């Protein structure tokens, strides 16, 4: 009898273990065949707010359920959308459990800045990412073209047929060669490695001949004997090619320290991009030093790198969700998180000065250079047969940066013409709004 009981107890134990798995571990809650999934569309849902408490996404009661509204179309790439037929994306998906139980999500975004960036970029394809360097808060994240989360029903077939891929979030998933916006990173690596003697100069003859290939400056200009600051301001390919050759494999380590070649630990998923494992030749190194070769980055990664330079070499984790309110666990607050101290403060300061010089009298100079104290760097990623991508990274004000930005305009041509004015205008707007 005892043995029979033990066998029965074993059976009951197996059922308990199995019930434990199916009730607490199995991943079934959002399975499309689960009718509970659709219940969320019939009840009131929590709102998503920006940093000032302005609603970004909210529900209103309509006949037979609730409708979801969004404050700006470009929010579909960040906040995402929530639709009974088309599912959910972005923060709507990530915080579905919280939102569907009526809790509210407070983001770090600034709706005014988001709208301003959307307006500035409208008409072109590209991305803008604005970060606060000292905390890592994402103030704006725009990718165009985009879908309008509040008008999916009317436009869905158009979105599906749009060859410009409005569903692609270019800020997080667009992979581009960085071009010259990588030069501040190369400068930082050289400064941090002690490869620069104070007052040293580099010779720029307009052309750099190396084993493996030859490369030249934009337009074939020669700048002569110049300091590295001037080389950055004038975006000298020859000098940065030489610096990269001196740094060798150490350059790749610094790229990785800045977060290239790996996912940014943002709430939203994003692409790793590509940083090669090794340097094949001096020419390869020089090409990497001017952001060409096989290097691939996302605008989000470049914004993160610009923020690290602005923040004295301290890399902060970019984050979107500041706080979740309501429900039993009343408040969950995100604290800024240091990802790493990647540069000595002096090295970061040196790069900052050089980028300020570029903004005052170099390639990153714009109409706003006189009224706004910013630091910046443009890039023109060469694409061969198709028009080049225009890049800009920067931060402002120079002495105590409060905003860092990365702008990418797909096939926009010259960075100085297509991207820098946009970046400067966005920084001005951001500083205005933060006052």
């Amino acid at each position, binding site marked *: *009898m005892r043995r029979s*009981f033990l066998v029965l107890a074993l059976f009951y134990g197996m059922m308990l273990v199995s019930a434990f798995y*199916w009730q607490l571990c199995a991943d079934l*809650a959002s*399975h499309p065949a689960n009718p509970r999934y659709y219940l969320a569309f019939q009840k009131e849902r929590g709102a998503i707010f920006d940093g000032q408490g302005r609603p970004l996404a909210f529900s209103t009661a309509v006949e037979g359920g609730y409708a979801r509204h969004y404050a700006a179309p470009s929010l579909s790439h960040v906040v995402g959308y929530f639709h009974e037929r088309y599912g959910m994306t972005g923060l709507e998906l990530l915080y579905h459990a919280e939102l569907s139980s009526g809790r509210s999500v407070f983001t770090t975004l600034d709706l005014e800045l988001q709208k301003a960036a959307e307006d500035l970029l409208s008409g072109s394809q590209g991305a803008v990412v604005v970060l606060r360097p000292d905390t890592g808060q994402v103030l704006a994240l725009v990718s165009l073209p985009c879908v309008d989360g509040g008008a999916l029903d009317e436009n869905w077939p158009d979105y599906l047929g749009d060859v410009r891929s409005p569903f692609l979030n270019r800020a997080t998933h667009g992979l581009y060669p960085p071009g010259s916006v990588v030069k501040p990173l190369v400068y930082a690596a050289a400064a941090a490695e002690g490869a620069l003697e104070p007052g040293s100069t580099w010779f720029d003859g307009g052309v750099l001949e190396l084993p493996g290939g030859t490369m030249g400056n934009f337009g074939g200009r020669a700048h002569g004997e110049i300091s590295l600051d001037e080389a950055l301001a004038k975006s000298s390919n020859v000098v940065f090619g030489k610096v990269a050759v001196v740094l060798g494999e150490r350059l790749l380590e610094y790229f990785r320290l800045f977060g290239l070649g790996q996912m940014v630990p943002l709430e939203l998923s994003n692409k790793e991009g590509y940083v090669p494992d090794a340097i094949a030749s001096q020419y390869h190194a020089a090409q990497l030093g001017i952001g060409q070769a096989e290097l691939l980055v996302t605008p989000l990664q470049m914004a993160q790198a610009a923020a690290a330079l602005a923040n004295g070499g301290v890399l902060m984790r970019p984050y979107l969700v500041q706080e979740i309110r309501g429900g039993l666990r009343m408040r969950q607050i995100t604290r800024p998180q240091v990802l790493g101290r990647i540069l000595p403060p002096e090295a970061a300061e040196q790069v900052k000065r050089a980028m300020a010089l570029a903004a005052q009298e170099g390639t990153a100079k714009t109409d706003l250079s006189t009224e706004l104290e910013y630091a910046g760097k443009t890039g023109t990623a060469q694409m061969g047969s198709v028009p080049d991508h225009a890049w800009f990274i920067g931060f402002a004000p120079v002495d105590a940066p409060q905003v860092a930005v990365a702008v990418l305009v797909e096939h926009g041509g010259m960075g100085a013409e297509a991207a820098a004015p946009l970046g400067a205008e966005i920084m001005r707007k951001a500083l205005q709004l933060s006052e």
Partner: protein
Amino acid sequence: MGLLYRTWFGLTGWIVGVVLWLFILQGQVLWWQPAALWALFMVLWLITRQLGADSGALPFTAVLVFCGWVFLARLDPALAQGHFYGAMLGAVLYLFGLLVPAIRFPFTRLWAWAALGLLAVTAIWGESAGGARAWLSVGSLRFQPVELAKIFLMFYLGRQLSREQAPWERLFFLTCFCLLAAWQRDLGPAVLVFAVFGWLSLWHSFSWYKLLGWAAAAAGGFCGAVGLFSHVQNRVLAWLKPWDYLDSKGYQVLQGLFALRAGGLVGQGLGQGLVRVIPHGHTDYIFAVLGEEFGFLGVCALLLCYLSLAFWALRILDGLDQERQLVGLGLTLLLHGQVVLVVGGILRLLPFTGMTLPFVSFGSTSLAAQFWMLGTIAGWSRGGGEA
């Protein structure tokens, strides 16, 4: 040990029962049914004590019956009423089992013929529901004879086994029973009786050859059933790959799992689950409903109740003669084997065999029959069963 036993079987179950009863009463329109059930269990308990029998099973049975009543009332008050009358009938059969020593009935083989007769009558005049021809109507009453037939057959098999004679006769009746049940397309009882008798026979005298024989017979029966019956094939497919048949064969299994997952640790709360999407939520799949609304903790409590009943029964059987041990073990295993098959099926440990969850599911005949088993075993706890 004795104190522990008395505390658990004399106190804990009643406390849980009282809490559950109060829980049912709050805000219930149908207040008189749980109140009457409560009174019924008290009366049964007092009678059992007066007769000097072990009353330890009653608190846990009360908890299970209340649980079933609550969920049926929540699904459909008419079902709860059926459960209530089933429990009333069950109380009568419990007392019958307690007072009438059916095991002393002299003509052993008559039990087997009665079991086969019930099945044959059902097969000929029965009505179908849920794919199986398992119901018999007498006037306005509708019942499932196979629930009684299982017990009759177990009386025969247990007694026959203890006499160490004519093994082929036992196997003949067992095979007939299984084939008749299969003919009605009601394979649950066939699997259950087969497995229980296999266990009994091995428990009685173990040998590796015998084990091998039973395993071969089980495998053969399984293959035969899969080959012959399309609904068995569907059940097996739904067990192995429910995801491939989301809205056909696998629908019930998946809805059960979704419901369980929605329950989580503490459940959605009574009345909060989305239970109407589960087919047979009031009978075969009531466990999934309970899992959704009471959560993993509720499932633990339910399984603990069953395990306690098993402990209670096997402890009583421990001191008896072999004949009663065999019959009693058979009856106990009929009940718990059914729990294992049903709950294991819902949890995807086994292919699902449509049967009721003892004491909880809707189904008056099975409820009453299970009360008879309890009463029989309780009766044997009276000083060697000299009733």
